[in-house]
């Protein structure tokens, strides 16, 4: 088994680079202590090791099957679901009076990071279910909450999100699934959904699908979309499964990776319509779904981080033990071969992975901490700023780890060489698992449109402004520290380049919105690099504080801190400068992809 994540890094990120301990002063967390957080994470790690990592390989080679009647998963899947539920994790961050443990968001996300690292396919079942719990909590009626929340939180059903259709993926405005009002106030749904994760399985007795559909006669486009609860079995008052609903599995899709999460095609209304219950108001469904999607997007970024982390751990371990060749300066062929890590180019591949894996984990935990502040900070101004910043960075928090996670896992294969290409090693599986992340919960281009077309201009640019101010704070802090002042300067220049590019693109969008948005994915990457650099500077600042504190350190701690600062340096010297090239393309309003003609391909 590849070691899961890195306990020292998690401790560093939670308590040194972030100030998770300060949450204990908030009334919501008064009962907790760092000891409770640590005990919880210990349990998360042992559950992940024992019940998730144990079948990561088996679930990849024995993917779910459908015999026409039911779906079969390897039995370890149910054991993992049960263990996750029994550990109390499905309800970990819900309120006490809902049967939860009221843990902070950021601790919950670390729990999920352990299971993601161990086995992302199996971890998908609780991952999506938690999103559904949050959605019903936020927008369900008292009756809906009373019926469905305990059902999912106690593990008797999982939850799913059913948005995509065979003809509609990123463009949801054109979905075709229809909902007809019934006499009893419920609805009957007719249509088909595609690529729905976890909607059939044999791990729990029911499935609660959250389905986007259009009520007959509603407006065209996204303003006519409503959200429905469509359970597989109608739920009796006591929570037990009742009559079979008219939502059936048309078939399973067969995936590249992430295999143990079933990927389904669902038919609604093959007979007299699938019974659905409206959530909130009609025609506001997409807005509701997006609350869950925003949380899910942070979750996807963290999932990508965990897979990248495992690739890094695997290839680092391999490189430290694999003797291969000698340095150019060594002329004696009878001298012993050196380990792979002795070669500078292998260290480059490892550094890049470290920058992506640890950087992605921190990006996700930083976003989770903002989510926390947005909801529980005592100072209203802090809540507001956290909300603005979180809104802004969400597209990058999802897409930067997904994109660079893939490159990191690719590097892991490269380090293992021939072994990396073989299925006997886990590097290739991790790469296949990772490849989903730039696609689901909004494909990469969607996030480009989101950041440039919406986020940087919304609220008169207030989100972008908060970003500039917050980055500047850390630049100022780093300027005062000898070993970080170079990086402060590099980031200051990049930040100003980003801001100039932003203003010129906003102007271009004013003239021609299609042309202005044509290069949005490149802009997303540019923003992602600046965000990643800022967060690496934050980690470097915390590491410098650790190194210079009067507290006693052991040797391993010193290496740990130096590794953080050096990885930040790698990212600043090797990957941040790309923003200059991007700025040239973007500022000139480059028209090459825009002008390309279909007939010229």
């Amino acid at each position, binding site marked *: 088994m590849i070691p899961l994540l890195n*306990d*020292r890094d998690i401790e560093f990120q939670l308590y040194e680079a972030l100030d998770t301990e300060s949450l204990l002063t908030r009334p919501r967390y008064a*009962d907790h*202590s760092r*000891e*409770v957080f*640590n*005990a*919880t994470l*210990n*349990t998360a790690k*042992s*559950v992940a090791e*024992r019940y998730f990592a144990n079948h990561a390989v088996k679930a990849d080679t024995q993917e779910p099957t459908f015999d026409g009647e039911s779906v079969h998963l390897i039995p370890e899947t149910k054991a993992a679901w049960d*263990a996750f539920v*029994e*550990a*109390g*994790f499905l309800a*970990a961050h819900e309120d006490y009076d809902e049967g939860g*443990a009221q*843990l902070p968001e950021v601790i919950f996300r670390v729990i999920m990071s352990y299971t993601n690292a161990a086995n992302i396919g199996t971890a998908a079942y609780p991952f999506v279910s938690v999103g559904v719990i949050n959605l019903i909590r936020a927008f369900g009626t008292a009756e809906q909450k009373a019926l469905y929340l305990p059902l999912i939180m106690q593990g008797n059903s999982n939850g799913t999100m059913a948005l995509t259709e065979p003809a509609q993926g990123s463009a949801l405005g054109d979905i075709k699934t229809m909902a007809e009002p019934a006499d009893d106030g419920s609805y009957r749904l007719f249509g088909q959904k595609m690529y729905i994760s976890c909607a059939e399985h044999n791990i729990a007795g029911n499935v609660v699908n959250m389905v986007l559909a259009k009520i007959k006669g509603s407006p065209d486009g996204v303003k006519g979309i409503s959200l429905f609860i469509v359970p597989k079995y109608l739920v009796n008052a006591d929570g037990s499964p009742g009559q079979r609903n008219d939502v059936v599995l048309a078939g399973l899709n067969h995936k590249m990776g992430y295999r143990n999460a079933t990927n389904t095609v669902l038919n609604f209304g093959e007979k007299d319509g699938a019974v659905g219950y409206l959530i909130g108001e009609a025609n506001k469904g997409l807005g509701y779904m997006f609350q869950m999607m925003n949380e899910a997007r942070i979750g996807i970024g963290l999932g990508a981080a965990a897979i990248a982390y495992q690739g890094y751990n695997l290839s680092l371990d391999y490189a430290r033990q694999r003797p291969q060749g000698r340095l150019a300066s060594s002329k004696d062929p009878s001298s*012993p071969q050196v380990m792979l890590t002795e070669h500078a180019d292998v260290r480059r591949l490892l550094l890049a992975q470290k920058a992506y894996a640890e950087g992605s984990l921190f990006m996700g935990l930083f976003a989770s901490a903002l989510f926390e502040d947005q909801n529980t900070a005592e100072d209203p101004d802090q809540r507001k700023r956290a909300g603005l910043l979180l809104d802004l960075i969400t597209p990058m928090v999802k897409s930067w780890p997904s994109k660079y996670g893939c490159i990191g896992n690719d590097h892991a294969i490269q380090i293992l060489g021939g072994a990396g290409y073989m299925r006997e090693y886990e590097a290739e599986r991790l790469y296949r698992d990772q490849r989903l992340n730039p696609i689901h919960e909004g494909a990469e281009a969607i996030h480009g449109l989101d950041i440039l077309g919406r986020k940087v201009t919304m609220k008169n640019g207030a989100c972008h402004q908060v970003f500039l101010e917050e980055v500047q704070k850390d630049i100022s802090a780093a300027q005062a520290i000898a070993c970080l002042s170079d990086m402060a300067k590099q980031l200051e220049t990049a930040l100003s380049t980003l801001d100039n590019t932003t203003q010129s693109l906003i102007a271009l969008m004013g003239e021609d919105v299609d042309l202005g948005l044509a290069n949005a994915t490149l802009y997303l990457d540019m923003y992602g690099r600046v965000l990643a650099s800022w967060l690496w500077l934050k980690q470097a600042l915390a590491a410098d504080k650790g190194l210079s504190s009067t507290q*006693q*350190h*052991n*040797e*391993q*701690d010193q290496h740990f801190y130096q590794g953080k600062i050096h990885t930040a340096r790698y990212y600043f010297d090797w990957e941040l400068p790309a923003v200059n090239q991007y700025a040239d393309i973007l500022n000139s309003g480059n028209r090459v992809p825009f002008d390309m003609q279909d007939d010229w391909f």
Partner: protein
Amino acid sequence: MKILVAVKRVADYNVKVRAKSDQSGPDLTNVKMAINPFCEIAVEEAVRLKEKGVATEVIAVSIGPKVAQEQIRTALALGADRGILIETDVAMEPLAIAKCLKQICDKESPDMVLLGKQAIDGDNNQTGQMLGALTGYAQATFASEITFDGASASVIREVDGGLQTLELKLPAIVTTDLRLNEPRYASLPNIMKAKKKPIDVLTTEELGVDVTPRTKLLKAEPPAERKAGIKVEDVAQLVDKLKNEAKVIV
């Protein structure tokens, strides 16, 4: 039936412990600490006995610095009912630990004391046996199965030649081996509940135990690194080297 379980705070088994550069001992600065794995098995067994209705109360006791409360708290989250910490900053040796536990036995009159067969820091494998001598309780070490029949317990022990079954009169001392059980994880609701369970704190002075170390650590150093091997020409040369260089055969 009352069960006393001893839990020791040690470096987590995943940590690669290194010697301090001045050789004064292992470097435990900022090292992740955990409950000794053999003690965890003892806690698990006690909790299972309680769940079966054999035991009525499980008390977790630890001896060490104030932060050893964390390990008691872990035992409470696994299902122990209350804790006792004997607080001391002295580096405790097995005899001192056994003497402290003897005092707790006198106060609590447990029917069974469960201990790990050894702790992964000192690897002494002495405390249970010493406690047996001090209390005069019946004793079974290296247990891989414990069953009860009224006032006696039957323990299967792992010994060099195989398995040995002992019948013990209660009160008894049992030390646990690896195969006794697989410890559970502490669920989140139980971690929360554990916060509210009581922990009594005592000192070695209050117990009247002299814990002054009887031995002195001269130095701690890492094992010598393995040197690169050589290729021998033939079997004769190998035998020669084994005989005359390594002196492992005659």
